[in-house]
């Protein structure tokens, strides 16, 4: 058995595991794709209402969160470069920054959502029913899509925490950093989805 395990390690195939994460990213894109189609269909049917509802959202917080995610994408990419340059300290610092930025994103999201809920807007709320179908669909999609995206942020944070621990105990090193790169790719995906959510909900109002 020990022989067998040693044999597996020998056959490490970084290209293969990178292919794996790319395929997983395709899956995620189609997962959100279903929601983007739903958004497109309902926007087409409720142009006026979507237009007005979009103006209710706080562009400032949205912009700040966009910038936060873009920077976090940069820091995780930089950590991949740092590990290749054998700079473990910089790698750790950059991963920490990524994690903190992700947390900041969630804190912002929390305030944004609670402000909306304070105004009486949540799925199935009486106010939404009063506002009509377009608003119901817009905010339904808003909560569902940004909520699912926030869930992906949390999953990404768990993944990055695992990576952080592995960099610390030297299981991710300059010649074995595929997990870090894969984590980075996943994080870019989470970033990318937000890049689409941001204009769809906040900007084209």
């Amino acid at each position, binding site marked *: *058995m020990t022989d*067998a395990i040693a*044999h*597996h390690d020998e056959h490490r*195939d970084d*290209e*293969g*595991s990178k*292919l*794996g994460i790319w*395929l*997983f990213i*395709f*899956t*995620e894109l*189609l*997962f*959100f*794709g*279903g*929601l983007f*189609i*739903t958004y497109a*269909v*309902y926007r087409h*049917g*409720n142009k006026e209402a979507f237009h007005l509802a979009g103006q209710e959202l706080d562009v400032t917080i949205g912009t700040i969160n966009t910038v936060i995610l873009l920077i976090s994408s940069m820091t995780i990419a930089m950590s991949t470069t740092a590990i290749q340059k054998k700079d473990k300290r910089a790698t750790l610092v950059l991963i920490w920054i990524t994690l903190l930025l992700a947390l900041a994103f969630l804190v912002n999201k929390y305030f944004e959502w609670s402000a909306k809920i304070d105004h009486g807007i949540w*799925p*199935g709320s009486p106010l939404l*029913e009063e506002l*009509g*179908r*377009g608003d*119901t*669909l817009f905010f*339904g*999609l808003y*909560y*569902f899509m940004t909520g*699912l995206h926030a869930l992906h942020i949390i999953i990404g944070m768990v993944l990055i925490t695992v990576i952080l621990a592995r960099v610390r105990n030297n299981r991710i090193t300059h010649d074995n950093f595929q997990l870090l790169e894969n984590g980075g790719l996943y994080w870019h995906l989470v970033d990318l989805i937000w890049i689409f959510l941001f204009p769809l909900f906040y900007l084209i109002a």
Partner: protein
Amino acid sequence: MSSSQTEPKGYKSYLEEDGGRKGIFKWILSTDHKRIGLMYLYAMMGWFIIGVVLGLLMKLELIAPGKTLMGAQTYNATFTVHGVIMIFLIVIPGLPAVFGNFMLPIQIGAKDVFFPRLNLFSWYIYVLGGILVIISLFGNGAPDTGWTFYAPYSFKTGTNMLPAALGAFVLGFSSILTGLNFIVTIHRMRAPGMTWFKMPLFPWTLYATGWIQLLATPVVGITLLMVAGERILGIGFFDPAKGGDPLLYQHLFWIYSHPAVYIMILPAMGAISEIIPTFVKKTIFGYKAIVFSTLAIAFVGYFVWGHHMYTSGMSGTALWAFSLLTFIVAIPSAIKVFNWISTMHQGSISTEVPFLWAASFIFVFMIGGLTGLVLGSLATDVHVHDTAFVVAHFHFIVFGGVGFAFFGAMHYWFPKIFGRKYDSGWAKTGWITFFIGFVTLYGPMFYLGIAGMPRRYFDYLDEFHGPNIISTFGALVMIAGFLIILVNLIKSARQGERTTEMNPWGGTNLEWQVPTPPPLENFEEIPVIEKATYKFD
């Protein structure tokens, strides 16, 4: 029976290799692709028995008009749970999870799949999905939406449909991860010299299937989550009262669930393409045609979902486009049938059990496929939509196609998997009984559908009584056949005559060049592939 070698038992087979674990932990902690394949087999066997019992209950209810066994609500729950179990727990994982796991690495000359631990994880997700389906049976009554969970009824019904829908979501996740694993395995782990076009056809079909699993399953995943959001939060995505569109649900659902039938049938076609050359001792006719038609089915299969919705309300243009595409997707399947028949032409056919299953597969698949065209053309579909005709067509393809191929593959690879022989006399008796029962069960339903008997009702008009009696009788015969097959296989797996013969059928692929049963990592030394597969001396 040429080239039958006997390997002296100077090695430890995967069944003896326990990784230092005891009892059930030998299985549930093992990342060996062969053990995982068998774990899927055993889980699916249990589910299948439940699904068959539910199917039998429906046929018994339909033996006479009016209420015989159960009322409307129970009948609705029965066909829903029957569908959910059969579709999501059996035919979708189906051949890839069992034989794909067991045979794919061996057939491409690899020691395991690329992500062995992810493979075991997929099995656990599969079990979790099954548990959710079981949970749905308790509480407010079993779900009664049909396996399609159509909106808006799926969030209006008082029954416990949410766990079933979440179960389907979770099972989809398992399916995605298996597909991902197989694609990476095929890309990265083929033995040296095994170019794409030297790869056997079963891995090819698993490859095409893997892409469908990856790219189609997430769409139904998000759709089922949206239904959950609808039920839990009352969001209103598919609720007309809140501005939502139930038709959108149908589109999103079928964008996955039509390609899903190719997830089911492609690996079945792959298994048939393995069995036929072995038993006619001839190279497969048109290897490349089979490969490209497999890829064509996977590709075109994405664009035909609308044919489930001819009567739901779509534009006329969409209707004829979907109808045209449906006819186009039939072509590659027909190409395969021609290839199989041409392979048999002038071959030396030996009618062993796996071949009988393969031949009867072609028979039922043809009937299922051609009646599919009746449903694919617009005018006739309006007439037979939502009738027993659809049920007959569907069961000829999915049960006849996938089921027959599964039994064929089971009898083909059985000696390799278990290192034991089965009783081929009983296997043949089981096959002929099953086959006769199958045709008697589903054949009359074509007539009933055309005569106007709707599906999914516990009751029917008196004029449909005769064919329904025949159909129920067929169900009993088929189940008798199934029991013969099941008892024979289980008994043989436990006490059958041991065999270490490497190549009992005279097959040409790599699985027949490893010891029986295979050792833990299949190959002592990774083979180097020089010649194309399916070459008989």
